[in-house]
């Protein structure tokens, strides 16, 4: 119970944020909000020791029991690691935002409500063991991301970016839901753990491959993989704390989480390995290549995030290879999954700090344009140090944590060519080559980021105001992250044993029984010259050369025609959707009431008659009918004539009289059919109605003058005849087959004993269904008030009355 509740603590806290913001103006709201992720981080930290031993914690409360839907918190190595990232980085980001967002100018209550909402949603994603609740939280992260990107909603770019991210991630989310439903159809359960347990049986299922593809749509859109990455650069319009948090450290890793979580189910498939590894590597290369093109600091970081996410993704794909190898736990294939999780932690630390530095530069200089920046090293020494640590780690240099995971990444990629199945023995050699080239570009953009900003010539005339070092409060969070970058390099095995191995065990449960079975030791120096080290040295040398020569070859980016980019495709598609759907809607949304009524009547007729035919429900039986009496036939003739008058009458007065005659005939029918109460009511009501009609008629003298015979219209006639036929058919069928016995006997038996009345109809109305009658009176009262209001209301019309055309 408690464990599930932790997920919702941020959401509950969000309720109080607006009140705190309104009532306590002097203290930045962020200080209060900070308590939430900090507390949760401490709570989750208490799980670390036990989870590291291989324990798992399970807790659930039913949500919609009738549909077998429950909210479940399942904490194993993988979800605990993510929960710690969410709350840990979350605390640092909130702390940073306190100094980033001005308490007087910004709408802090909105910001923190969205942020806390996101926090709950993200915790839900990584802890849910139930597919449907996982989907629910998944979409909630998309929505809160949308709100946060659009936080400065007066800017066009913010709204555009928000919408773009929403369209793409929600599209992927829906695909993923399809995959989840297929998984349920195959396995008969919504629980991920149970699905993993029956994974070997699922592979044979014909739907398996579809579930796989649909699920990857969700993961690839969320984690900004090729070609869906286009939303992430536009999402940089969000305030920088949001970029650091959602679009670098946590939300974009939800796709990574999804792939990792479902690896035990899908790893058996060849397609899974090819897709995840291939798309990951392509994204890695694509992102790193285009990062060098960018001129905006945050855009560089966005593309670098895309690229790094691709790296982790490809490692997860390579990790699935271990499921196909005998004795994988001791083979060279064991590294990939470990490297994926290890790099995920490292990426969160160095990329988080870099984003915060980008925010600081923006905040202090007023620009993020790398062409205007330069020479800030002496002015902002602390920021420079942090940025250098982050960038060098990203580039894969020692003594920073990125070096370790980059080495391991290369190991994993090199191992792929030794894999003997699925054509990897021929194509596998491509993987290390692509990885190597992408790493060179990673090196280049890392240096591009830090050197262009901090070194070079300081040009004070380019800044709006004199830049200076950021306040210390703003530097705390990036400094903590940067020191982690260094610390992890020196204690990688502590991190590995505590966080990485339990998570790896969750990804590869069939290989290891407990986290300590994973025989991996991280080391910066392996005691010999390894191929990875040679590759790293190559990366550094070629990277430095290319970086120095950057002005000479940067022109190749201009060669790419804008018409061929994915952004252009997205814009074109959105425009076409907009225009096309608008056109379609205009086809049927004519604004004419009669057209809508035509749709409704034809729809209801088609559905009803269709059902009668499909279900073979029509039947005709003459049993149990009442006898036909001659005066009844006379009444029927009168009724028909009255009805015909309403249709064919030339004058409206005649039509009203026709309606009145129908009403009185119906009253007579009530008399014949033993319903005296109805007859009385009908007579009274009919009299008042006719009087009302005539009153309205009297007040509208012009109506009478513009008389015209109604023209015969074929479509109207067809629809009305169809409706008439439908009602007759249904009436006949309903009469001829009584599927359920009448419940009226109950009233007949109890009306005197329980309600003490003799007139059953009246007792039903005032006693059994007394509330219905009460509401009926209320409805009449409301109608009466509305009528009064309409008569009293006189619109102030400034313009001329509506002109008829």
């Amino acid at each position, binding site marked *: 119970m408690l464990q599930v509740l932790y997920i919702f603590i941020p959401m509950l806290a969000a309720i109080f944020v607006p009140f705190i913001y309104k009532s306590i103006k002097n203290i930045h709201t962020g200080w209060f909000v900070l308590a939430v992720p900090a507390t949760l981080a401490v709570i989750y930290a208490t799980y670390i020791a036990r989870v590291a031993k291989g324990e798992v914690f399970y807790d659930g409360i039913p949500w919609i029991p009738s549909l077998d839907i429950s909210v479940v918190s399942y904490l194993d190595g993988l979800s605990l690691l993510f929960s710690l990232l969410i709350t840990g980085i979350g605390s640092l980001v909130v702390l940073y935002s306190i100094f980033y967002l001005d308490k007087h100018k910004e709408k802090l209550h909105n910001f923190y409500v969205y942020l806390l909402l996101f926090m709950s949603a993200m915790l839900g994603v990584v802890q849910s063991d139930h597919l449907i609740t996982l989907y629910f939280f998944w979409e909630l992260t998309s929505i809160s991301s949308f709100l946060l990107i659009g936080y400065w909603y007066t800017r066009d770019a913010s709204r555009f970016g928000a919408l773009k991210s929403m369209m793409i991630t929600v599209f992927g989310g829906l695909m993923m839901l399809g995959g989840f439903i297929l998984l349920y159809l195959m396995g008969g359960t919504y629980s991920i753990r149970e699905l993993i347990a029956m994974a070997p049986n699922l592979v044979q299922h014909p739907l398996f491959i579809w579930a796989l593809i649909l699920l990857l749509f969700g993961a690839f859109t969320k984690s900004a993989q090729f070609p869906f990455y286009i939303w992430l650069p536009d999402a940089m319009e969000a305030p920088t704390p949001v970029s650091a948090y959602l679009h670098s450290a946590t939300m974009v890793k939800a796709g990574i989480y999804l792939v990792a979580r479902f690896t035990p189910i899908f790893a058996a498939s060849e397609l899974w390995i090819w897709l995840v590894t291939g798309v990951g590597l392509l994204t890695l290369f694509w992102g790193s290549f285009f990062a060098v093109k960018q001129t905006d600091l945050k855009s560089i970081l966005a593309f670098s995030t895309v690229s790094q996410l691709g790296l982790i993704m490809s490692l997860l794909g390579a990790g699935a290879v271990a499921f196909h190898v005998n004795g994988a736990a001791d083979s060279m294939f064991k590294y990939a999954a470990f490297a994926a999780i290890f790099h995920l932690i490292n990426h969160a630390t160095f990329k988080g700090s870099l984003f915060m530095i980008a925010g600081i530069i923006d905040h202090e200089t007023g620009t993020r344009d790398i062409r205007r920046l330069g020479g800030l090293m002496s002015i902002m020494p602390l920021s420079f140090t942090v940025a250098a640590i982050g960038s060098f780690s990203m580039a894969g240099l020692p003594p920073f944590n990125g070096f370790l995971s980059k080495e391991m990444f290369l190991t994993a990629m090199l191992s792929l060519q030794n894999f003997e199945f699925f054509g990897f023995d021929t194509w596998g050699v491509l993987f290390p080559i692509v990885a190597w080239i992408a790493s060179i570009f990673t090196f280049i953009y890392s240096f591009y980021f830090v050197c262009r900003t901090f070194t070079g010539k300081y040009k004070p005339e380019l800044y709006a105001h004199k830049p200076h070092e950021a306040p210390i409060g703003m530097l705390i969070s990036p400094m903590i992250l940067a020191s982690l970058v260094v610390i992890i390099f020196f204690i990688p095995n502590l991190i590995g044993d505590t966080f990485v191995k339990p998570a790896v065990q969750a990804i590869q449960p069939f290989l290891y029984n407990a986290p300590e079975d994973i025989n991996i030791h991280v080391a910066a120096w392996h005691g010999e010259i390894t191929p990875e080290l040679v590759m790293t040295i190559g990366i550094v040398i070629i990277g430095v050369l290319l970086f120095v020569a950057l002005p000479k070859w940067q022109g190749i980016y201009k060669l790419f025609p804008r018409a061929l980019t994915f952004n252009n495709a997205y814009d074109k598609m959105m425009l076409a959707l907009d225009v096309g759907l608008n056109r379609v809607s205009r086809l049927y949304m004519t*604004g*004419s009431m*009669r057209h809508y*009524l*035509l749709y409704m009547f034809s729809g209801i007729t088609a559905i009803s008659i269709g059902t009668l035919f499909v279900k073979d429900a029509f039947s*005709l039986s003459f049993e149990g*009918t009442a*006898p036909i009496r001659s005066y009844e*036939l006379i009444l*029927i003739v009168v*009724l028909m004539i009255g*009805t015909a008058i*309403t*249709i064919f009458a030339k004058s409206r007065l005649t039509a009203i009289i026709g*309606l009145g005659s*129908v*009403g009185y005939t119906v009253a007579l029918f009530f008399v014949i*059919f*033993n*319903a005296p*109460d*109805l007859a009385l009511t009908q007579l009274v*009501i009919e009299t008042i*109605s006719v009087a009302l*009609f005539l009153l*309205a008629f009297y007040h*509208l003298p012009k*109506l009478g003058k513009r008389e015209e015979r*109604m023209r015969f219209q074929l479509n*109207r*006639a067809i*629809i*009305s005849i169809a*409706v*008439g*036929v439908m*009602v*007759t058919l249904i*009436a006949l069928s309903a*009469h001829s087959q009584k599927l359920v016995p*009448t419940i*009226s006997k109950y009233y*007949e038996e109890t*009306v005197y004993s329980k309600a003490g009345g*003799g*007139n*059953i*109809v009246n007792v*039903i*109305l005032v006693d059994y269904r007394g509330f219905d009658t009460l509401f*009926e009176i209320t*409805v009449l009262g409301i*109608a*009466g008030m*509305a*009528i009064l209001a*309409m*008569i009293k209301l006189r619109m102030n019309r400034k*313009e001329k009355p*509506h002109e008829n055309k």
Partner: protein
Amino acid sequence: MEIIMAFVIGFLFMAAVYLILSKSLLRIIIGTGLLSHGAHLLILTMGGLTGEAPPVLKEGAKTFADPLPQALILTAIVISFGVTAFFLVLAYRSYQELETDDISLMRGSDEDE
């Protein structure tokens, strides 16, 4: 009798729909009136017309008419009256404001044009 009534009700519905699909507001209101008459008779007929006495408890009564449809119809009559009255006043007012009772001339709002 129920079979014949089924056709009568169908006829009522047909006429009602035909009127509702017309352009004149007054005819539309008349159409809704006919529609409710049709619905009332439909409910009553579906309950069966074989009862020999009104549904009132008294000595010597053999079979009652079904009371439940009657209770429903009683409510429906009153509600349909409320709707009709509301419609009428709405038509009257919109005629006063817009100077037409032709709904095809009423479509759209001023901003659209």
